[in-house]
């Protein structure tokens, strides 16, 4: 391992640890009330998060040891598994809060859309770079790969929207789009694709009145405090009342059922409330540093597949963090995606840690 890579390698490990630890600590506070109310055990979610963290680190170690090139060979297999799971969840999934997002396998709930994120990035990095293997002048062959990628990703996204889980679908879309930008797609064709996808996105939004309401709430937050604006308003109250230094760890008041999903999608609001501006900005910086080291690994990689895969993974994590924190602070519409490595949620944690394992593997080569 070269010296520059060593810094990124260990930096990434360090910040992963910091984020995961922060997540566990904040879940212990944010989930305790709802855990006790629902499960009569204040540590219910904490225990599960710790268990998933252990599994996740096994995944991380595994993927950091296995040559990432092997993933390229099974990218289609992963995509097919993803499709099967996404179809299965629509029929057999556990319904909660008006959505079917979870498959229950032997008492463990599993979120196929998280696996979809993982597999789509690997597939994307693979297909977008197949052109390099071809001889120059075989542009049409590349387009074939690219279009088939678009097709597969579109089906995945569609299945995820059917759950419905617009946030995850959108983050996959955005990560894949950035992957295309990165992989050297011509600006003009990117522009065309962007224009083409706009009406589709609009249509998807307009089909569901709830999404219209969310967009409306986002645009005019004060008009709808009791309806859809309730979540956002409670989130802002949490963060705002935290002030500069916060109320102190464990002292959140908003977690007493004022703020919904305090331990999952809105955990960042609890961080803002308990740890204040200092804590909230620290989280932003931690993610920024994580992204920085991820990018650094991508840049240093001699291997173009490794470069694109590393970048794709980093994008995926950064995009989710931005969309989540943006929604919680009211600068982006609420879409319902977790804050990576911090929000409670086993599948997300597992695959995020696996992805980080791949990043580390790329850094090693």
């Amino acid at each position, binding site marked *: 391992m070269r010296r520059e890579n060593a810094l990124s390698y260990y930096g990434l490990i360090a910040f992963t640890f910091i984020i995961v630890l922060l997540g566990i600590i904040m879940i212990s506070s944010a989930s305790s009330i709802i855990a006790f109310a629902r499960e009569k055990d204040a540590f219910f979610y904490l225990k599960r998060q710790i268990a998933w963290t252990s599994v996740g680190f096994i995944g991380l170690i595994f993927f950091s040891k296995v040559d990432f090139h092997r993933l390229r060979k099974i990218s289609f297999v992963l995509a097919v598994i993803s499709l099967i799971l996404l179809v299965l969840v629509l029929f057999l999934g556990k319904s909660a809060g008006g959505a079917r997002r979870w498959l229950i396998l032997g008492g463990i709930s599993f979120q196929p859309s998280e696996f979809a994120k993982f597999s789509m990035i690997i597939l994307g990095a693979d297909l977008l770079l197949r052109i390099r293997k071809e001889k120059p002048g075989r542009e049409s062959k590349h387009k074939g790969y690219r279009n088939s990628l678009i097709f597969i990703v579109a089906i995945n996204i569609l299945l995820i929207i059917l759950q419905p889980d617009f946030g995850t679908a959108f983050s996959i879309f955005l990560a894949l789009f950035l992957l295309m930008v*990165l992989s*050297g797609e011509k600006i003009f064709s990117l522009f065309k694709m962007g224009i083409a996808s706009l009406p589709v996105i609009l249509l998807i939004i307009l089909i569901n009145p709830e999404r219209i309401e969310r967009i409306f709430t986002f645009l005019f937050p004060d008009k709808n405090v009791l309806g859809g604006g309730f979540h956002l308003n409670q989130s802002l109250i949490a963060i705002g009342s935290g002030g500069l230094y916060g109320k102190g760890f464990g002292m959140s008041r908003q977690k007493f059922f004022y703020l919904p999903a305090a331990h999952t999608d809105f955990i960042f609001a609890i961080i803002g409330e308990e740890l204040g501006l200092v804590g909230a900005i620290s989280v932003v910086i931690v993610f920024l540093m994580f992204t920085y080291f991820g990018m650094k690994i991508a840049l240093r990689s001699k291997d173009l597949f490794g470069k694109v895969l590393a970048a794709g993974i980093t994008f995926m994590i950064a995009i989710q963090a931005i969309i989540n924190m943006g929604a919680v602070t009211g*600068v982006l519409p609420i879409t319902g995606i977790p804050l990576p490595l911090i929000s409670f949620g086993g599948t997300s944690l597992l695959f995020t840690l696996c992805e980080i394992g791949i990043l580390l593997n790329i850094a090693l080569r």
Partner: protein
Amino acid sequence: MSAPRSREKIVYHRLIIIFSFIFLCFSGITARLIYIQVIRSEEFNKQALRQRLRKIKLTPKRGIIYDRNKNVLAMSIEVDSVYATPRFVKDPDNTAEKLSLILGMDKSIIKQKLTRKSGFVYIARKIDKDKSKKIKKLKLKGIGYLRESKRYYPGSNLAPQLIGFAGMDNKGLTGLELYYDALLQGESGELVTEIDPLGRSIPDGVLNLSPSIDGDNVVLTIDKNIQFVAESELKKAVESSKAKAGVVIVMDTKTGEILAMANMPSFDSNVYNQAEVETLRNRAVTDVYEPGSTMKIVIAASALEEKIVRPQDVFYLPSTIKVADKEIKEAHERPPGNFTFSQIVSKSSNVGAVTIGLKLGKERIFRYIKSFGLMEKTGIDYPGEVKGYLPPLYRWYGSTIGNIPIGQGISVTALQMLRAVAVIGNDGVIVKPYLLKDVLKNETADSNGKSKSIKPVSRRVVSHETSQQLKNILKEVVAEGTGGNARVSGYEVAGKTGTAQKPKSNGKGYEKGKYIASFVGFVPADNPKLAVIVIIDEPQGVIWGGSIAAPVFSNVSEYSLRRLKVLPAVVN
């Protein structure tokens, strides 16, 4: 070789651009955080407090009302109120059915409450302990209980008009419960807590607690036993004479302490909402009546004080006397004859009283009536006291001076009349009647156990000599005159009977067959301890004060004197 190389470059540049973009996004979120957590922090903090702080009123325990010997007359007990949280009620029909059986309420009313769109609705407030126990056993979903304090009157129908009652919210509504509400009520406290959106309090969320201060206990001048005897004797008299109502007041002649204040008809304070309106009044202070012959005491006292007569002066009285256009007769027709001044009072001669009245003249009569406190409220510590009516001098017609001396055309309350007569027993000094003997400060209050005592108010009305002379005359009333039935064995009684026709409500003339029979006096005559007035309103059949009211006086006095351990005088 150049193509892949340029491609590497493209990837490199675009990666830098995308990372810059991500960096910008993170910076944007940071800026937003500063905006929310610094610039608008205070505003959000206020919003947060507004939505989760709740002020809970802590109700103090209402003070106890004791009689003079610390027997409880009114106290507060803890009882359950049943409420429902309608959205948690599983089966409104079945729940209503079960509740209606125990509470004895209409099922449809309960069901209507259970299905109301509200988070809280009372089903029944302050119910019996055994009822609430039964309901609790059913373990009904959505039904809850609140501990509330309820006023309880151990004596049930003992002095209900006097004590009054406190309502659902523990505020005094009538009587002494109302008059001393400020003392009894205490101070409510406040608990500021933090609650979650469902109204449950947040653990460790108490921000501020100012505890409630329980009400003070008050001690009345009333003697429970004397009150009881006064009530039962009065009840007997009212029932046997088929009267409409009656009043007995027993007062300490020298201090003005009220020992009993009985009213009939009566009611049970514990179920005051079932009482008839007619039974609620404390007639002793809220109702006026024309005193009739008992007024002769005031006239006689005035004449003696003015020294225009001496007790042994003899008057020749015709059968009737004409004043202006009105002829005044005696109650029992008699031939013309000689009467001493004493006999005019003891035999209750109307003609004699008018004769004395004419000698006094209206100005002096007016002045003495006023001096005896008959034109002002006694100032007793009881709400809603009224004063009697005496027409101002310029409205006295020619015949008025023929009416006032025999207690017509003037109205007084029983308490006013008792107080006026007690003047004679109290050596010519008028006292202020009162009911509050002591206030026992609650332990939680700062002045530990210090009690507030009331100083008697007094004023001289007539001289010692006058009161002695009149006292002797009033002894004669009982010894050999109209008040024979008022005698108490072992004690000498001084007093006066009264039988007055009731004026018509329009003020023109008198109702035929409607009388007020009364007796007022004090005992033992030479060193009086008690002043007692008995008033029977509209007795049927025998209507004379000496026949109906005097025996009540006798029985109540006899019991009271023994209870108070007043030594009997040696008489004959």
